[in-house]
């Protein structure tokens, strides 16, 4: 009886003081304030398995490091600070040495040139502080001339493995290369790697070319040319530089083309009788469909990634603003309501954001907003910024920045969607109207 009473007393005590019962549990903390800074990493020169691979081993490591550093998310620890030397790809990594220099990620690799002259690259990604490998080692094989692409692919793998989102290093950009004085500027289509390397011209400077746009697969380019005196839309095959003009009525002006996500339809603007509206055209048959009939100017259309909606620019409200409507036409919904003029909207490959050009108070901005127009965020500000284009992973925006004055020229810049890491894309000459292509296979 006494024991039962005591048991009851103990139960009441535990009910009254539950903390006593929880005392044996783990200590619980909630962390909400971290830091945002580039992750230190190290990419020592890859190990050359053969003397012929010596130069590749060094150059590939340098390109990988440049790719990662260029994102603004990573910071390379220079080779002079390295304690360990990677002399064998198979040897275990001395993590303590890399931990000592605060390298949080380590990329090791080896390069070999086989008998057929192909470059073989093996690499591993290590989490230094965890003391383990991130994922499994991989091997890439390519031509000797394609060693940069191999390096970009390694960089993409590292980027994806650490950040959790796809890379964009092994991609190309088509743009308008500009040269000469401002009043007699020669413009040619050109294509290059995303980092400005391997520039190749696709057209000559005989006529003015504008607004090139990559196809979803990156094998074709749409662009506008004044070759006939009127702006016409051309389709260019990147591989053989062959081209053809899309059929439009005489006396009309067609411009601002954009491929549909499936690559079979072209969305463009057509000016006829002083009115500019949106049209679609089947590339194979050449059949056109009119999407808008408003008396205002509708231009700069861009598909959503799923191909169901279109975002475009219209001045139907009195000033250029951004609208979204179904891909088959119909009622358009305005999404931009800020002060200023909005234009050149581009839907993000992720589908969550729309990049645009904004002119406000005498300055131009590149900005992003959600597809419902909320959370508008201006990323840049200058005398003239325009024409944004998305990186394949939807994390970076490239655009044209033109400097003021008679000696001013256009250059390409890129910026992270957070607004950080604004940097110029180095090109041999002036450049404008970039269009970022997809990741290459």
């Amino acid at each position: 009886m006494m024991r039962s009473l005591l048991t009851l007393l103990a139960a009441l005590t535990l009910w009254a003081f539950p903390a006593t019962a929880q005392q044996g549990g783990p200590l619980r903390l909630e962390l909400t304030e971290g830091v945002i800074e580039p992750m230190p990493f190290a990419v020592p020169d890859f190990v050359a398995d053969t003397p012929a691979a010596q130069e590749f081993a060094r150059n590939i490591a340098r390109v990988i490091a440049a790719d990662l550093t260029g994102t603004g998310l990573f910071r390379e620890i220079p080779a002079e600070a390295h304690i360990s030397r990677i002399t064998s790809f198979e040897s275990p990594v001395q993590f303590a040495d890399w931990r000592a220099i605060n390298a949080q990620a380590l990329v090791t690799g080896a390069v070999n040139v086989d008998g057929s002259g192909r470059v073989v690259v093996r690499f591993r990604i290590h989490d230094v502080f965890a003391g383990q490998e991130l994922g499994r080692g991989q091997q890439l094989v390519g031509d000797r001339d394609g060693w940069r692409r191999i390096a970009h692919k390694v960089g993409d793998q590292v980027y994806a493995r650490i950040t959790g989102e796809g890379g964009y290093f092994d991609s190309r950009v088509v743009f308008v290369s500009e040269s000469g004085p401002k009043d007699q500027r020669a413009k040619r289509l050109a294509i290059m790697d995303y980092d400005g390397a391997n520039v190749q011209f696709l057209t000559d400077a005989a006529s003015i070319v504008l607004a090139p746009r990559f196809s979803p697969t990156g094998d074709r380019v749409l662009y506008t040319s004044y070759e006939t005196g009127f702006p016409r839309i051309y389709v260019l095959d990147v591989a053989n530089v062959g081209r053809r003009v899309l059929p439009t009525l005489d006396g009309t002006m067609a411009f601002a083309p954009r491929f549909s996500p499936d690559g079979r339809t072209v969305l463009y603007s057509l000016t006829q009788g002083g009115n500019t509206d949106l049209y679609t055209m089947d590339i194979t048959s050449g059949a056109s469909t009119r999407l808008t009939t408003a008396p205002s100017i509708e231009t700069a259309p861009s598909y959503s990634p799923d191909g169901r909606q279109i975002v475009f620019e219209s001045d139907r409200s009195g000033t250029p603003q951004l609208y979204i409507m179904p891909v088959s036409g119909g009622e358009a919904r305005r999404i931009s309501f800020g002060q200023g003029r909005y234009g050149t909207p581009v839907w993000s490959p992720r589908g969550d954001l729309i990049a645009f050009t904004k002119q406000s108070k005498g300055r131009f901005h590149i900005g992003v907003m959600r597809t419902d127009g909320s959370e508008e965020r201006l990323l840049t500000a200058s005398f003239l910024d325009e024409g944004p284009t998305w990186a394949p992973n939807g994390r970076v925006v490239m655009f044209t920045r033109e400097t003021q004055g008679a000696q001013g020229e256009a250059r390409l810049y890129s910026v992270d969607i957070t607004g950080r890491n604004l940097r110029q894309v180095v090109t041999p000459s002036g450049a404008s109207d970039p269009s970022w292509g997809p990741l290459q296979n």
Partner: protein
Amino acid sequence: MNTGQIISGAGHLALIGWALLGGAFRSDPPPFEVVEAMAISAEDYAALVAGQSAPEAVANVNTPEPPAPGENAPALVSGADSAPAQNQPEVNSAPPPDPAPSPPAPVPAPAEVTDTPPVIETPPEETAALMPEISPRPQPRPAPRVAPEPVAPAEPDVRVDDVARPEVAPDAGAVVEEAPQEATAPEEAATEIVTEAERPSEPAPTASLRPRARPAAARPEPAPPPAPAPPTETATRPAPIPTPAPTPPATDRGAVSDALAAALGQGTPTPERPAGPPLTAGEKDALRVAVQRCWNVGSLSSEALATTVVVTVRMFETSKPDNSSIRMLSHSGGSAAAAQQAYEAARRAIIRCGNDGFNLPPEKFEQWRDIEMTFNPERMRIK
């Protein structure tokens, strides 16, 4: 009428008579001031008053006649007023210049003086008598009684007496039966009276020893890793401390302990090391800040930044994390791939900043041996 009443009546009559005839009801006159006065004669009074009488009034007053107008009026002659002569001020010639002052006689150079610092007499050192910080413990007051020979204090049960007698107890085995008596002893005495103030006392201690820390219960050290093992620290769960054999509760207190243990479902409690008090909010914040300092989300994807992960870690007693024990318990808000990236960032934070050990109170090791950290990047999310 009895005798008492007679005596009482006579007494009362005597008292009333004394009050009436003795002046008990007469009041004394009020006190007055006595002033001395001087007598004066009538003549003297008249003489005094005559000096103060008013003068007689004059009835007739002779007033002079006013002059008749126009009669013997003097002729008024008006002439030009001559300008008053003005005395020109005398022109003063320039005063002769003051003679140049003669240069002062050269002051003889002071004789070379050698400063000799005054000798400062050092005042006699004064030593302040400081009161002891701790009052001496009171000591038993010495016996004030003075005796030719000191007498030691008697046993507590001994009665004080002039003669010391040993205690005699009845002996069961004895034939002669003696009357029992109490033990006696002379009163405690000293040869001289020494007061408490005169007795030299030992100086009070100026410092006290720091109390010793609570002795930690003996815990087995983590088992050393085998020779070929990697150099990373490996956590080993401490071996269970031997549990003493349960003893039957002899008292109600033991029954309460058993009842509590039964309520907790633990059976007989094992003598684990004391858990110590829970971590204070400051200690928790310090740990949180230490980990957050290394929680770098700058390289995470947007989706990973929208993913909250709960990570558990077991700590070494050296306040370093057991890296091999870090696990992701759960995640929310993102895909599994994004959660993996978020978890790896959290793991890096724990390992990096715990490499040198966190600042945790060792006496509360049981409180922070197992930690669950929720990494919620909501505030740093890329919108």
